[in-house]
């Protein structure tokens, strides 16, 4: 199929995705931490065809992150313990944001903090910074779920009260749509989902990685320097799907589903479970064209089944 045939084909199915204040041209995004700052995959996959990209988590101050080894491959999975390495808010604003503003796609900035003040500062500063660069930030994804840092991160996302508090504070400091990114490392994810909804989140993204580990039997030591890391990849898909299904029934705000999506069939499953959009993460590492393969497969599926818009799929499995 030629490119023009492909685009005509896409036009037959409406892909526009409205997420409670965030409108995207299609429902396929890339996940934070897997897509750098948008330029790394540019030679292989055109960002102009993506619904949005979510950049690496930003903290107020620059972070070196964890020592290596930061990665361990597991069956159908990948453990990572990068530890939020990032250039910090000031450098991001000065040197990364202008480049992101030039990209032909919606940019979502992921923010992460160690205290409530961190989240407030990040939200306020990025709100201003976005305005400076033609409102280039379309939403903030609030990471209350990083498993690889000592304090903050996941600690905020495992307790409903703290989760609500963080989101409410971010709400006060920004006019941008807020995506609350949830950790699966909790007993009942619907409690956290309800909490961030009442805190003022526009959207929920789920799931972040599952805490895991790997041990080298020759050295008899943990493989990761950080001992524990976050598991991603096809191995976690059933868990992520179940959580999307549960959260869909618990809240009234839209969901971005992620966790092991590597094919269009996976994406369709997530939408049927209740995700209004999907994010591709680890699959990018294997197939840089995974987001586009997902998008094209989704269009074909809709067309074959006679759906006029991809949003018609959302929640059909309930």
């Amino acid at each position: 199929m030629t490119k023009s045939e492909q685009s005509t084909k896409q036009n037959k199915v409406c892909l526009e995705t409205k997420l409670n204040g965030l409108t995207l041209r299609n429902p396929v995004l890339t996940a934070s931490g897997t897509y750098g700052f948008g330029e790394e995959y540019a030679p292989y996959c055109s960002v102009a065809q993506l619904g949005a990209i979510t950049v690496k988590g930003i903290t107020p101050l620059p972070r070196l992150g964890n020592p290596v080894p930061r990665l361990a491959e597991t069956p159908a999975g990948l453990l990572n313990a990068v530890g939020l390495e990032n250039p910090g808010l000031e450098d991001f604003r000065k040197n990364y944001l202008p480049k992101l503003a030039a990209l032909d796609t919606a940019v979502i900035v992921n923010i992460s903090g160690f205290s409530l003040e961190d989240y407030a500062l990040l939200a306020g500063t990025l709100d201003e910074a976005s305005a400076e660069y033609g409102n280039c930030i379309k939403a903030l994804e609030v990471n209350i779920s990083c498993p690889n840092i000592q304090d903050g991160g996941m600690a905020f996302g495992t307790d409903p009260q703290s989760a609500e508090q963080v989101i409410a504070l971010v709400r006060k400091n920004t006019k941008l749509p807020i995506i609350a990114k949830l950790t699966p490392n909790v007993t009942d994810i619907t409690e956290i989902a309800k909490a961030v909804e009442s805190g003022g989140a526009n959207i929920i993204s789920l799931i972040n990685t599952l805490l895991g580990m790997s041990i080298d039997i020759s050295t008899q030591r943990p493989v990761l320097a950080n001992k524990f890391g976050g598991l991603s990849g096809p191995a976690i898909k059933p868990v992520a799907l179940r959580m999307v299904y549960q959260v869909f029934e618990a809240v009234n705000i839209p969901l971005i589903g992620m966790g092991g999506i590597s094919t269009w069939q996976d994406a369709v499953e997530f939408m049927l479970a209740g995700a209004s959009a999907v994010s591709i993460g680890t699959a990018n590492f294997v197939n840089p064209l995974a987001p586009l393969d997902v998008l094209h497969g989704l269009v074909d599926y809709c067309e074959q089944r006679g759906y006029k818009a991809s949003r018609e799929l959302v929640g059909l499995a309930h």
Partner: protein
Amino acid sequence: MYLKVRVIENRFVGHPSQKIYRLVLSGQLALKAKPGQFIHLRVAESHDPLLRRPLSIAGIDREQETITIYYRLMGKGTEALSQIRENDYISVIGPLGTSFTLAQKGEILLIAGGIGIFPLFSLLEAIDRTKVQVKLFWGGEHKLFLESAGLNYLQKLGIDYELATMDGSLGHKGLVTDLLQGYLEKRALNSNPALQSNRGLAPLSAAACGPKGMLQAVVNLCKQHEIPVEVSLEERMACGVGACLGCVCTVREEGGILRRKRVCKEGPIFAGEEVVWDDEI
């Protein structure tokens, strides 16, 4: 480039016990590849192994449009790779990363530990040996390993080399860095400006690949003798293109500030003096 390339050859070379394979790939990769760079290969279409495997380029043939890779069976990934047959097509991203500086004159020292010889093959090929004098130091477990991993090739090239093995079955018994140290000390004595004139003027540089401990020792020796050295680093990788921050190393910048660099993007070739080794942090 992200493309499917045809496998021309994929078979073990040398003694079967050493599990060393040669993989020859056809395609335009060869036109862009530079010594020291790597390719990121999808070794199987399954979810296990899930990730691509980074493999350094050992040979570049622009006329035939082929690149050659050597690898040793180590685990799931290389096991899967060894199953790929000739004329199959495999998915490749690359060439990726930085390359070695090509010395134009003077003398270059190449130091290899074990299978760290492989990326140095591509550098050896690219150096104009009519203008640059090459001296290679290579250490391995034993004779059988060195013979299986390309000793014949070095002999055929006719370059000057010294070998070391851990068990003494070939060359010096001990570490490759012993050889380098001996050579540098002798050279320092000979280049005493009081004794002779222009020998010390020829630019001397070095390139090394091997285990981290060896690289650290090489960099220290080169520092003592004021020789610029480039090292090829290896680290567990996921994306290979700089997006995931899985494969970083630590460098010291001016003013002593520590920074991470991505082995896949700002590397795998680094100036030896900038690298901060794990035991130094």
